[in-house]
């Protein structure tokens, strides 16, 4: 269900000669991820800060007025002046100079840490994710051990064994933190390992190395960049923490050593503590922000801002007041149409676009369904057939707008003329009770965490207000009604324990459980095998006759239409092409589009003959349409 909604909503090309051709024919503009980072104010600030810090560190030798360890004993703990612009520390060393040299060492060692972690984690993750098997099992053990080690204690041990070198500490920390890369890479690789394009590359004879570098590495590149930004920040923090504890190398200036030094004199000169802490906070903060900006830039292309209607103010106000009026007192439906179970009048459904326009996916569609009648809505993907069905159910996504028309159910408006959204208050009283729904994918519409029985009983208890015991008896009877041989067993089963055809029967049982007047079935047999489809169609026909309900059947299959429907609506690109009794539409279609569709059926065709006669006008236009997308 969501898929069809998304297709209609997100692929403007597929269904859209109506709303103008803005941006649909030309090549799509792809803005690079880097440009998007620059457009993000936080990303830009982070980049500027990091660039500044890196430049200061790189040119420390030039910029620093003193050597990092040059001590002027006569001038300790001095306040800032023209010579020592940030003052001096307890040994009379220049704070500004030490800050610059400290940046050099701190940043380089943090990068070393990240590099070590990547060198270990990335290849191991790629291999474990791609080949799985023994290597993965062993690697997982090693990772488990590494992660269970108490990091700080290990680092202290290493210090006492190898001396107070910040480089050794950071290499060790890189090893300790490499599991984070390993896990990231492995799960990313696992998610694409069985993609068909990787299979296709194998069939093309690509070596594993080529497949990994070409098809798989691109998937992990972005997460690696984000992770590195975070890890570098963590490394700076851990390194400084060690040095703050006095485990650093006192001969080398780093931010952590300065912090430790400043802390000793916190009461005398608090600024000694402030500057290294400020440098750290700035750098780590910028790294985190940069990571976020990279993620944002890579994850979504364009966000569509939720704007209100872009109509002129006066019109807007008029529409608003009309909607308000409609909300308080629902207008009466047009006289003489109350007997229709459902009547859709000039319905238009649209999605607001980034540029403020509204893209219509359903345009000027009118039809009705009477009690005891099966109406088929036929069309190809992007024809708006599912959107039409969902607007009757009131299950359109939040971004959707009813841009025109009205829907009435049993003599009352569910969408009154002038309203721009489905009125959930009115519809929720009907949905599940008087209007029910059979979805396309039976398996994804049953919750795997609950038994089938529970999922049948709960709605009945809620909607019909009957006791649980009564609902259980009813559910068992319903399961028998839909042709399930052993209803008791199915009742207790979890969804994964039944087949797709069985699951669809369960959903049909659920759909009729509250004695609806209207059933909306959205491609109810598309996901099923042909033999199972035939059984489910028999079941729907049988139930429809027995209960006398109205059915709206959304499908792309003319065979299914012929099997079930009384009347047919043909849709294309959001518009209604043709409507009529099933025999008329299938035997003597008037519209060229319907003729083309029926001509595409394989039934009764000469095998191995061309289906689309070359040069026919219908073909030319449809190929043009296909190519224009």
């Amino acid at each position, binding site marked *: 269900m969501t898929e069809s909604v998304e297709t209609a909503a997100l*692929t403007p*090309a597929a269904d859209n000669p109506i709303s103008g051709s803005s941006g649909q024919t030309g*090549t*799509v503009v*792809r803005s690079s991820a880097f440009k998007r980072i620059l457009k993000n104010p936080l990303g830009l600030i982070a980049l500027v800060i990091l660039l500044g810090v890196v430049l200061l560190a790189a040119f420390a030798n030039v910029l620093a007025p003193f050597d990092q360890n040059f001590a002027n004993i006569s001038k300790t703990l001095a306040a800032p002046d023209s010579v020592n612009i940030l003052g001096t520390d307890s040994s009379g060393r220049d704070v500004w100079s030490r800050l610059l040299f400290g940046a050099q060492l701190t940043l380089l060692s943090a990068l070393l840490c990240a590099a070590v972690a990547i060198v270990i984690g990335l290849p191991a993750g790629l291999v474990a994710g791609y080949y799985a098997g023994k290597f993965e099992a062993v690697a997982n053990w090693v990772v488990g051990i590494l992660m269970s080690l108490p990091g700080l204690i290990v680092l202290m041990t290493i210090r006492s064994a190898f001396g107070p070198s910040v480089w050794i500490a950071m290499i060790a920390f890189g090893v300790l933190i490499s599991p984070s890369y390993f896990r990231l890479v492995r799960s990313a690789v696992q998610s694409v390992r069985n*993609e*068909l*394009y990787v*299979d*296709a*590359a*194998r*069939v*093309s*004879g690509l*070596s*594993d190395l*080529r497949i990994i570098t*070409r*098809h798989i590495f*691109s*998937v992990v590149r972005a997460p690696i960049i984000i992770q590195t930004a975070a890890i570098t920040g963590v490394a700076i923090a851990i390194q400084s923490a060690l040095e703050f504890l006095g485990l650093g190398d006192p001969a080398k200036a780093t931010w952590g050593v300065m912090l430790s030094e400043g802390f000793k004199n916190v009461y005398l000169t608090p600024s000694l503590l402030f500057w290294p802490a400020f440098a750290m906070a700035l750098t780590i903060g910028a790294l985190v922000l940069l990571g976020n900006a990279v993620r944002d830039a890579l994850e979504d292309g364009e966000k569509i801002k939720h704007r209100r209607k872009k109509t002129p103010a006066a019109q807007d106000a008029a529409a608003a007041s009309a909607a308000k009026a409609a909300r308080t007192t629902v207008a009466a439906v047009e006289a003489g149409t109350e007997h229709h179970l459902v009547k859709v009048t000039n319905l238009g459904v649209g999605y607001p676009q980034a540029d403020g326009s509204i893209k219509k996916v359903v345009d000027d569609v009118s039809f009705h369904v009477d009690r005891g009648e099966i109406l088929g809505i036929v069309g*190809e*993907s992007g024809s708006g057939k599912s959107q039409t069905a969902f607007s009757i159910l009131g299950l359109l996504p939040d971004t959707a707008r009813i841009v025109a028309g009205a829907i009435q159910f049993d003599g009352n408006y569910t969408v009154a003329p002038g309203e721009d959204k489905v009125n959930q208050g009115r519809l929720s009283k009907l949905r599940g009770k008087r209007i029910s729904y059979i979805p396309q994918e039976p398996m994804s519409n049953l919750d795997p965490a609950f038994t089938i029985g529970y999922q049948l009983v709960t709605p009945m208890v809620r909607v019909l207000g009957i006791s649980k015991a009564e609902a259980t008896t009813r559910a068992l009877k319903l399961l028998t009604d839909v042709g399930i041989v052993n209803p008791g067993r199915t009742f207790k089963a979890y969804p994964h324990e039944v087949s*797709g055809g069985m699951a669809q029967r369960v959903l049909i049982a659920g759909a009729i459980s509250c004695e609806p007047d209207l059933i909306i079935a959205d491609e109810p047999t598309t996901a099923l*095998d*042909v*033999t*199972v*489809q*035939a059984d489910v*169609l028999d079941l729907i026909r049988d139930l429809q006759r027995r209960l006398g309900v109205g059915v709206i059947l959304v499908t*792309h299959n003319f*065979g299914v*239409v*012929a*099997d079930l429907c009384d009347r047919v609506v043909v849709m294309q690109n959001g518009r209604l092409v043709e409507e009529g009794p*099933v*025999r008329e539409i*299938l035997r003597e279609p008037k519209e060229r589009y319907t003729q083309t*569709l*029926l*001509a*595409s*059926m*394989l*039934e*009764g*065709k000469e*095998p*191995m003959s*061309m*289906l*689309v006669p070359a040069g026919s006008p219908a*073909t030319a236009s*449809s*190929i043009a349409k*296909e*190519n224009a*997308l």
Partner: protein
Amino acid sequence: MTETVALDAAESSPARDGLLRVENLVVDYAGKGFRARKFRALTDINIHIGQGETLGLVGESGSGKTTLGRAVLGLAPVSGGKITFEGQDISHATRKQRRVLSRDMQVVFQDPYTSLNPALEIGEILAEPLGVQGMEATAAKMRVKELLDQVGLPSDAIHRLPREFSGGQRQRVAIARALALSPKLIVCDEPVSALDLSTQARVLDLFLQIQKDTGVSYLFVSHDLDVVRHISHRVAVMYRGEIVEQGPAEVVTRNPEHPYTQRLLLASPVPDPDRQEQRRADRHRLLEEQRQQAEQAGVPA
């Protein structure tokens, strides 16, 4: 020509079944967990495909038809039996042998949305198999243009990404990739199942046209008997990991012998209410007959 091919293929002359031969093939998948029972996906499969011939493979989901295609391509483990391609045993071909084989054997998958790497441009996707075989960049570029032309895509598609195309067009790209090395056999795994009706018709036309022009053979896997009847010379019907019936397309898809194929044939609805009503009645009669036969045979239905 199509008529004669269909009839010729019925009786497999030695020249015709030379391309691909699968004998007593068994595929087992390891079960989940330690010492779990193996899952037998294919049992004792025997098929053969001649040059320029299409073998249609039809069956329901889980019948093993996709696994058979994958076993031929080396993507599924062969536990027993033999697959020969042009007389060479390829049941356990190494990666190196596969690279040589990929010149002659290619694939088109069902889902045009996941069979193309979303991060690569169409030109890069099509040039990939050419590069593997050592073709130079300029020559590859020429070939890519030719391929796009052959499958009816505009030449400006080279620098576009898969997501800028519709399902039907993506499937054309996938077909172009399969054609890149002028293979002798293309394994088509439900290549039109994800497509709209009118798109499906055009893509089927494309498959037929390509076969006419290049003489390529197809192993055409589909769940749709109508599609298989339309495109195949011979048809094999799979049910629960076995081939239950195999023969000339016209015979198998119109007068099937096996009860499962009979059920399959009558289950597919026809686009006319009255004929469909007739077919429905026939189906119910058939199901009743088969049930009675099963009862008489003492097997619970």
